[in-house]
């Protein structure tokens, strides 16, 4: 057994240049955290193997110490053999990559610092506790923003296809907004489509949301959501990756990442998923990890719902169905805190038909807005869909209606798609009758 325990916290090889003294986290010495960041940037070194290496060497920093010695590669390969003989030892290429990374430690850590990323190790206090309970938790997370919201009492993942139907987009918007208003943290994957709609809906409610991305921070994907990522961080949420900044997102990284989306949450809601959507991978992870798994059903001939419907059929004993937004909140135990006073809890008493939830009126949602905006919002809540219909109801000029729609859209209260306009956010939950 070579190099076991070499270099404790004060051991040799302390020269990791550029490593900031990271004293804010309790739990893990700064050297180890830095060493993790360096080791995680090695291509081909996964969390399992890294775990064995650390286990044998004693600490991440110790692994790096080995890598900086003369015959480092051989020692690393030897160290990667698990004590109980399980698992494959690392290959020469990986060993060489570790040695190279060790030599590059300064540059790697410099980049982490430059991108304003924190490295949060599994032993750190703000490492999400839900993630510790999954099978292979990442040894460390690369975090932009604050992980505090992942410690919230309710964390719900909302995921779905990158190519949603307008209904799917609207539902993601409504569900995200409702969860945010109920005080839950919404976790998703920053993808275009359902994920992005959910993140954005939460932000529009000034709620907390966390995005797990499938590549390094320096390779943010999709690029179209760079601004969304910034907004999430600015709003007090976080963009999180288990990969070092320069790791490219690939076909393989996204399914791996999906286990974090489900693992960081108590429940997963799949809004729309095609037959082969990655959102189904997240749903499977959820079941495997013992998380609640909700799926929004769709018409049986709708391609965008084929995955959800199929999953509900295949896992009818475990997967749960979303029959309405208030019902979802109820199933999640969120209705009491939803800000929607329930005259009667839906679902109780057996008969689903008797569920009743009192919803706020459109004008309550719109207090303080201009008369034109209220008029247009009322028209939308009452079912007007096109500008023609809004004009017919409000008798406003086309120009005035269009201006009001823009203002409502900026407020996150209207969603425009395909020449139609629909209430969004809190307005989507507004009650037409009481208006």
């Amino acid at each position, binding site marked *: 057994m070579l190099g076991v325990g070499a270099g404790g916290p004060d051991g040799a090889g302390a020269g990791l240049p550029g490593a900031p003294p990271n004293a804010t986290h309790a739990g893990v010495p700064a050297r180890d955290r830095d060493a993790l960041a360096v080791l995680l940037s090695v291509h081909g070194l996964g969390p399992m193997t890294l775990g064995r290496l650390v286990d044998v060497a004693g600490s991440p920093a110790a692994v790096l110490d080995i890598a900086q010695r003369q015959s480092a590669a051989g020692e690393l390969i030897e160290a990667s053999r698990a004590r109980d003989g399980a698992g494959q030892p690392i290959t020469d290429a990986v060993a060489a990559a570790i040695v190279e990374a060790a030599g590059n430690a300064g540059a790697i850590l410099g980049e982490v610092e430059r991108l304003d990323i924190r490295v949060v190790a599994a032993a750190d206090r703000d490492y999400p506790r839900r993630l510790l309970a999954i099978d292979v938790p990442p040894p460390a997370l690369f975090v932009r923003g604050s992980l505090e919201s992942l410690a919230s009492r309710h964390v719900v993942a909302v995921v779905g296809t990158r190519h949603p*139907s307008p209904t799917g987009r609207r539902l*993601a918007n409504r569900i995200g907004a409702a969860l945010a208003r109920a005080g839950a943290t919404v976790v998703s994957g920053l993808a275009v489509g359902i994920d992005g709609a959910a993140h954005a809906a939460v932000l529009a409610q000034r709620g907390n949301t966390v995005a797990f991305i499938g590549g390094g921070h320096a390779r943010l994907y999709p690029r179209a959501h760079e601004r969304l990522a910034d907004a999430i961080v600015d709003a007090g949420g976080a963009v999180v990756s288990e990969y070092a900044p320069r790791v490219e997102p690939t076909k393989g990284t996204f399914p791996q990442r999906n286990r974090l989306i489900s693992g960081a949450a108590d429940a997963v809601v799949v809004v729309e998923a095609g037959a082969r959507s990655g959102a189904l991978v997240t749903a499977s992870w959820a079941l495997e990890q013992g998380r609640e798994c909700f799926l929004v059903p769709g018409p049986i001939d709708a391609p965008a719902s084929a995955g959800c419907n199929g999953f509900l059929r295949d896992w009818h004993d475990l997967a749960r169905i979303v029959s309405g937004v208030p019902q979802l909140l109820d199933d999640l135990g969120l209705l009491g805190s939803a800000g929607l006073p329930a005259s009667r809890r839906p679902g109780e008493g057996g008969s689903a038909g008797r569920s009743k939830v009192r919803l706020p009126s459109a004008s309550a949602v719109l207090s303080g807005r201009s008369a034109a905006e209220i008029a247009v919002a009322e028209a939308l809540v009452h079912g007007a869909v096109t*500008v*023609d219909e809004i004009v017919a109801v409000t008798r406003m000029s*086309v120009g005035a209606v269009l201006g009001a729609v*823009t203002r409502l859209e900026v407020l*996150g209260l209207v969603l425009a798609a395909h020449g139609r306009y629909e209430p969004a956010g809190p307005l989507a939950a507004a009650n037409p009758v009481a208006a």
Partner: protein
Amino acid sequence: MLATLLSATLVALDGRVIRVEVDVAPGLPGFTIVGLGDASIREARERVRGALRNSGFVHPPRRITVNLAPADVPKTGSAADLAIAIGILIGSEQFTARAGRAAMIGEVSLGGEIRPVPGLLPMVAALARRGVRRVIVPADGADEARLIGGLEIVAAATVAEAVDALRSRRRAAPTPPARVELAPDGAGSATPAVPALTETMAVPDLADVRGQVEARRALEVAMAGGHGLLMIGPPGTGKTMLARTIPGLLPQLSDDESLAATIVASVSGEGPLRALVRTPPFRAPHHTSSYAAIVGGGRALTPGEVTRADGGVLFLDELTEFSRDVLEALRQPLEDGRVSIVRASGAATLPARFQLVAATNPCPCGHSGDEDRCRCPLGVPDRYVGRISGPLRDRIDVWVTLARMKAAAMVAGPDPEASSVVATRIAAARAIQKARLGGRLNSRISGRALRTIAQLRPITARRLSDLADGERLSGRGTERLLRVARTVADLGGADAVEIEHLEEAARWRPPSSRPNVALAV
């Protein structure tokens, strides 16, 4: 004996004077044409031979050599037929021409009739610039030729008539006044001796288009500012119908524009024209049109649709179905207002200052957004409109999405406005723009000049940057928003761009710049 006459040919949109030298000499019978002529010029031999024989003249069994000078100008078309025929008659001494060097333009038929040729107007203009006093033109094209003032136009229907005109001692006809003076302020068209050029296609009236108030408004804004317009919507929502109303919405052309449009119409073979073209051209090429048909080209550097739409509107229905090359080729004209064509036979830069109006389905099946009907595979609708490349999208200021209307909305509701009402507002808004610095339409203004004419108050400027931030607009996107807002303000008669104008203009942005949900501001 040698005969020398003047004629003309076309190089792109310009007429060029050519000298037709015909030498009829003893020797083995033969007929040779030299001087960079194309296939249609070589075929002139056969036409001329037949025309002479069937007009009662003799095609001399001698050695005939025709030289078209200057030798470096490529000659195309059949406009020199008549000059060649007359040259042979003079060269073989079948008649004696009087009164100096004559100029003539026209194609001859085997039966000896003289037929009109495309581009008569610029060719006559070229002869006039050369100081020619008298031109023989096809009888059918006489009206078109007379649009050029200051020279005697002799209309001849047959070769025999042309010979008579040349043989007579007196002038065949007193110099008729030009039908339409080009210089005065368009008063010439007030009492049209001949009806103005009628549109080949019936122009529908906006009063016939029910519903779609959002798209109607977008159309009005686009026409008022000369902005590029893209209409996205399922089939049957009225995209094409709305576009077809455009000729009824635009103001008449000014004199300069009118002359330019008339020349293009003449060269494009829309003639023979009877009067100046006063209505802005509206060109609607089919999406299967070739690159050369859209851009122009061929040996004769024939103007393409982009040039034929100069000063007017180019309507591309089913935009995404046009070939990629064609769409890419639109970039230069959209940017510079002209198109450069380079061919082996030469290069030309033609005007192409058109307003782009386009329509497309939202997806291949056309029903995206209508979940019961759209059967496109997932992701396909997203990619469909994405086929429009970035540079092209950047040059479309006004985007509007049309939804299928409910039948009730089509029947009920107030009667829609007629084209004439909307046209009045558009004309007023355009007049405001013309009166401003530069006299250009808002669509042609950018950068500092745009900021100047926008006259933003600080609070409005703030709103602009908020909207731009919220929509993640690029610098160009922000400019586009401001440009359209300027037009909305012009339609409302406002001096400065106000918040309400910005907010309306914000609706006309490309759908892709909309995030899933707008972020809270």
